C-alpha cells in the first residue's frame, strides 16, 4: 500500500486513555500526519477490525544514542557478532535500508528499526554529557523512524556546583537554560547528584542527600533543589529527571525516600525506581522496600517515576554513575569501562546478566513488578527497563505480559530464587492484572504526558498520527512484540509485521530563554578550565523547531 496523505483506520478497538477511550470500536482518521475528526468518503482505509489500536509507544527513559552507548557498543563485539541484523526489505525510495548488529546495544539503524517493530515511535536517550551532545545528534541522525531527543546531564557539572556553592541560584538557572540549548537537549538529567564528582575527586561517592561534597556546602539536596527549581521555573515540558544517589545498594530506599521528601511540593521525575528501592544493608539481608517507596509516590501527585524493570537475561549496565559501575566491576569481575568526562560527569559500563537463580536479581525483578502492581496512578508510574541496564527494550512485550497475566508472573516465580523475597508484596501474592488501557497508559499516554508532549501518546484531533495496530493474540508477549501495523506521522512504517519504510524522525529539544549577561561568566569559566573553546561547545543548529515551552 502506498502512503496516502489521508487514511482511515477502520473498525479497531481503540485504546486512547488520554481521551477516555477504552476499547471502543471506532475509526481513526488521519490527514497529513495528524489525527483528524473525519476524512472524506473514499479515503483509503486500513482494516483493523478485530484488532487493538493504540497511539505509538513513547519511551521516556532509555540509553541508545550517546557517546557512552557507543563506548558500550565498542566493548561488546561478541554481542554484535552473535546478533547480525540484515537490512530490512524497505520499499524502494522509502529511506535507507541498512544492516547492523543487535545485542543489548544495537547499532543506530537497527535501533530505529527494532523500536518501530515494537510499535514505539518516540524515545529519549536519558543521559547525555553536553560535551558530547554533538555525537548524540549524529547518532540520532542515523536512528530512523523515532521522534527522539536527549536529556542533558547536569548534576555534577563543575560550573553549576560552583554556583550552588556560591548561592547563585539565579545564575544557575540561566546556566541550565543555556546548557539545554547548547546541547540541543529536551530535559535536565541528574545522575547521582554530587556523587560522580566525589568519585572523580577521591571522595569516592555520596550516598546520602545531606552529605557534603568535599569541604564545600554543596550537597545532593542543594543540587536537586537548585535544578528542580530551575527546570520548573523555566517551565520545561519535563521536570528534572532524577537518578538518585546510592543506586543499586542494599538499604538505599532511605536515600530514595529522603530525596523524594526533599522535593515534596516540587515537580520531579524519579527514574528507574526499582534500582532505588532496596531494604537491608548494614548487615541485614537485601529486601524489598517497594511498598514504602511507592506509597510516597501514590501520595504525591507532583512526582512521577519510571520503573526500570529488571528482566532475566543479558543486559549492559551503562550509566554516568561511575562509582556504582566500579562497585559492580569489583563484585562481578566482568570487563569494565570508566570514562571521566571533564567538568561535567562520568561514564561507567559493565556487561551483566540477570539470572533467575540469583537471589538479588530475583529480588530486583520482584521489586519492579511490585512498583507496577502497587501503583495507584499508572499515569505517574510508567514502563521502562532503563534499556539496556535492566534489560533490552526488546523485553517490553514480555514485561507487558507479566503485568497483564498473573499466571505468567507465577510461572516465572516458580523458576526464580525466592531467598530474598520473603516479606515482599510479590511473595504475598499480588492479584492485579493490567488492562489493555492501563498498558496504553504506562507505555504511551503516561510517558507522553510526563514529557509534556501534547501531540504524542493519544489519538485525539491534532495529535501526531503515530499509531500502532496489534492483532489480538492470547500470547500477550507475542501480540506486543509484532504489531500488525505501525504508522509514523500518518505513514505506514510496518505492514503485516514487516518494516517497509524508515523515514527520519523528528528531533525533540527545547531552547529556553536566559539572561545573555550570564554567559560572560560561563565564557570565563570555559576560558580558564575547558579544553574545548566556548565557541565550539554548543551543537549549533538542531534539526526541527524546538518544542514550545510554557503552560
Amino acid at each position, binding site marked *: 500500500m502506498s502512503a496516502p496523505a489521508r487514511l482511515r483506520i477502520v473498525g479497531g478497538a481503540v485504546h486512547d486513555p488520554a481521551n477516555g477511550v477504552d476499547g471502543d470500536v471506532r475509526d481513526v482518521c488521519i490527514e497529513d500526519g495528524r489525527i483528524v475528526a473525519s476524512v472524506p468518503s473514499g479515503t483509503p482505509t486500513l482494516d483493523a477490525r478485530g484488532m487493538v489500536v493504540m497511539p505509538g509507544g513513547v519511551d521516556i527513559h532509555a540509553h541508545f544514542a550517546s*557517546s557512552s*552507548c*557507543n*563506548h558500550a*557498543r*565498542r*566493548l*561488546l*563485539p561478541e*554481542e*554484535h*557478532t552473535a546478533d*547480525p541484523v*540484515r*537490512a530490512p526489505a524497505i520499499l524502494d525510495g522509502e529511506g*535507507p*535500508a*541498512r*544492516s*547492523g*548488529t543487535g*545485542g543489548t546495544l*544495537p*547499532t*543506530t*539503524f537497527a535501533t530505529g528499526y527494532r523500536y518501530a517493530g515494537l510499535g514505539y515511535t518516540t524515545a529519549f536517550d536519558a543521559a547525555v554529557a553536553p*560535551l*558530547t551532545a*554533538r*555525537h548524540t545528534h*549524529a*547518532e540520532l541522525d*542515523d536512528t530512523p523512524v523515532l521522534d527522539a531527543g536527549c536529556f542533558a546531564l547536569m548534576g555534577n557539572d*563543575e560550573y553549576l556546583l560552583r554556583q550552588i556553592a556560591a548561592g547563585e541560584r539565579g545564575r544557575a538557572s540561566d546556566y541550565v537554560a543555556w546548557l539545554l540549548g547548547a546541547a540541543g537537549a529536551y530535559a535536565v538529567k541528574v545522575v547521582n547528584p554530587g556523587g560522580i564528582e566525589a*568519585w*572523580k*575527586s*577521591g571522595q569516592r561517592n555520596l550516598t546520602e542527600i545531606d552529605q557534603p561534597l568535599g569541604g564545600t556546602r554543596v550537597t545532593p539536596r542543594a543540587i536537586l533543589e537548585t535544578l528542580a527549581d530551575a527546570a520548573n521555573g523555566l517551565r520545561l515540558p519535563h521536570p528534572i529527571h532524577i537518578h538518585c544517589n546510592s543506586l543499586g545498594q542494599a538499604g538505599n530506599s532511605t536515600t530514595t525516600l529522603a530525596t523524594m521528601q526533599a522535593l515534596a511540593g516540587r515537580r520531579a521525575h524519579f527514574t528507574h525506581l526499582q534500582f532505588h528501592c532496596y531494604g537491608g544493608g548494614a548487615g541485614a539481608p537485601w529486601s524489598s522496600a517497594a511498598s514504602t517507596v511507592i506509597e510516597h509516590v501514590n501520595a504525591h501527585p507532583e512526582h512521577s517515576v519510571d520503573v526500570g524493570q529488571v528482566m532475566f537475561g543479558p543486559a549492559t549496565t551503562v550509566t554516568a554513575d561511575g562509582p556504582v559501575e*566500579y562497585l559492580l*566491576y*569489583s563484585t562481578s569481575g566482568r*570487563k*569494565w*569501562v*570508566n*570514562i*571521566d*568526562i*571533564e*567538568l561535567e560527569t562520568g561514564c561507567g*559500563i*559493565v556487561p551483566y546478566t540477570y539470572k533467575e537463580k540469583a537471589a538479588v536479581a530475583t529480588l530486583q525483578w520482584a521489586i519492579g513488578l511490585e512498583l507496577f502492581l502497587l501503583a495507584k496512578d499508572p499515569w505517574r508510574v510508567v514502563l521502562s527497563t532503563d534499556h539496556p541496564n535492566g534489560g533490552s527494550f526488546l523485553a517490553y512485550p514480555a514485561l507487558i505480559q507479566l503485568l497483564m497475566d498473573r499466571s505468567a508472573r507465577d510461572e516465572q516465580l516458580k523458576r526464580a530464587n525466592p531467598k530474598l523475597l520473603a516479606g515482599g508484596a510479590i511473595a504475598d501474592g499480588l492479584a492485579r492484572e493490567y488492562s489493555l488501557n492501563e498498558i496504553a497508559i504506562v507505555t504511551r499516554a503516561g510517558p507522553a504526558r510526563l514529557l509534556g508532549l501534547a501531540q504524542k501518546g493519544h489519538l485525539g484531533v491534532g495529535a501526531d498520527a503515530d499509531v500502532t495496530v496489534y492483532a489480538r493474540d492470547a500470547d500477550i508477549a507475542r501480540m506486543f512484540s509484532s504489531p500488525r501495523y505501525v504508522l509514523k506521522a500518518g505513514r505506514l512504517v510496518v505492514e503485516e509485521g514487516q518494516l517497509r519504510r524508515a523515514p527520519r524522525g523528528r528531533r525533540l529539544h527545547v531552547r529556553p530563554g536566559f539572561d545573555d549577561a550570564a554567559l560572560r561568566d560561563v565564557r570565563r569559566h570555559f576560558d580558564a*578550565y*575547558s*579544553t*574545548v*573553546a566556548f*565557541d*565550539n561547545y554548543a551543537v*549549533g543548529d538542531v534539526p526541527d523547531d524546538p518544542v514550545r515551552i510554557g503552560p
Partner: protein
Amino acid sequence: MTAGAAGRAVCLGCGCACDDIAITVSGGRIAGAVNACSLGLAWYGDGSVPARVTVGGVPAARDAAIRRAAELIADGPAMVYLAPDITTEAQREAIAIADRTGARLDSVTSDTAAAGILVGQRRGRAAATLGEFRNRADLLVFWAVDPGTRYPRYLSRYALNASATHIPAAGRTVVAVDVGAARGPAEATARIGLAPGDEAAALGLMRAAVLGREVPGLPPALAAATDLARQMARARYVGLVHDGETGPEPVDPQRAEGLVGLAQALNGPTRCALSSLRAGGNRSGADAAMTWQTGFPFAVDFGPGFPRYRPEEPASAALRDIARVLIVGAANGVPPAVAAALAGRRVAVIGPRASQASFSVEVAIDTGVAGIHEAGIVYRMDDVPLPVLQIIPGPPPTVTVLRSVAAMVGTRPAKAGGR
C-alpha cells in the same frame, strides 16, 4: 580577511585536535595559523589542494569519474577504506556505500592502532577526556612516549596547563618511564628505565604492587617500577599516558594489556585514567562512526549481508583477496603497509590530494580537507566531537561526491557465507 579570528579553528595535524587556532587568510590562501604547532603549521600549509578529476590518469569529467568509481566498487569484491582528513559526515556516507555494496570496510586504525582497542574490548578500560588530565592529575606518568614529538601541544594544553580546577599549577609530578629507546618527556622530574624485554614483567609487577601483592628480591629496574606503582597508588589522580599508535620503535604486544590492567587496578586505592594518544585526521571519528553504524570500530566485512568483525585481519592483509578499493580520504595518509598492498588493485580515491597519490590510481577525485575546506564534525583522540569550519573554498565536498557515488551503486544482494 580573517577566518577563525576568535581562535576556534580545529587543527587535525594530530589527535590533539587543538581548537584554539586563529587562522588568517589572504588571497584565498592560509597566511597564518596562530597557536598551531609545527605539525599544525605543516598540516594547514597554505591550504591549497589540487582540484583535479582523473580516470586512468587522464583528466575526466566529474560525473564520469563518479560513475566509474561507483562501477568499480559495485563490481566487488571490494573494500571501502577510510583515510584521514575527512569529516565524520563523509565517513558515515562511505560506510553506507560499503553496506550497500557488501564491501569490506576498514580504516587507518586496523594497521596502526588496533592493539589497544582490542585490549579494551577484552578488558574494558579506565580512561578520561583530556580535560580531566589537565584539571585533576597530580601525577602524570608517560609510558615510553614523549608527546612533544608526535603530539606537540599535548603537554601544554592537556597535561601541564597552569589553569586547573582541582590542582595547583605546582602540584603536578611528572614521571617518565623510558622503555629502550622510547623515552618520556624532558619535562619529567623523575624517570625510570626499562629494557624492552622487562616491560611486560614490570607492568605485571606494578599491578601486583597496586593490589598489595609484593614480590621480594627484584632487580633494580623492576624494583623501581614497583616503587613507581606505590607512588601512583598514593596520588590523588593518576594520568597514565601512552601512544596508541604504532611508532618507529617495536612495541611489546603485551604493553597495552599491561597498561589497561594497571590503570584499572589503580582505581581501587585511588583514581587513574589511561590516555591513549592517537594521530590526527579524524581517525577517532572513523572508529566512532563505524561503531555506531556497524557495532565494530574497524575491520568490518559486509559480505554476508551484515557487518562481520574481522579484527584479526588488518586492511593490509585483507587486501590480498580484494581486487577493488575505494579510498575515501587523504591519499597521503594511507599507511605504508596498506599503500604497498594496493599494488595491482583497481583503486579509486575520493579525498584530499587524490590525484597526487603515491600509488597507482584508476579514478581520482580531489576533494577538500576537513577543517580547511569542509565543515562538519571531527573527533579528538579522546572521542570528544568538535565542529570544524570551512576556512577557504576548495573542491566539491567529499560528502557531496560520496552521495553521488551512493546514488549510483545499487544494493547488492547478500551472498551466502560472505566472500
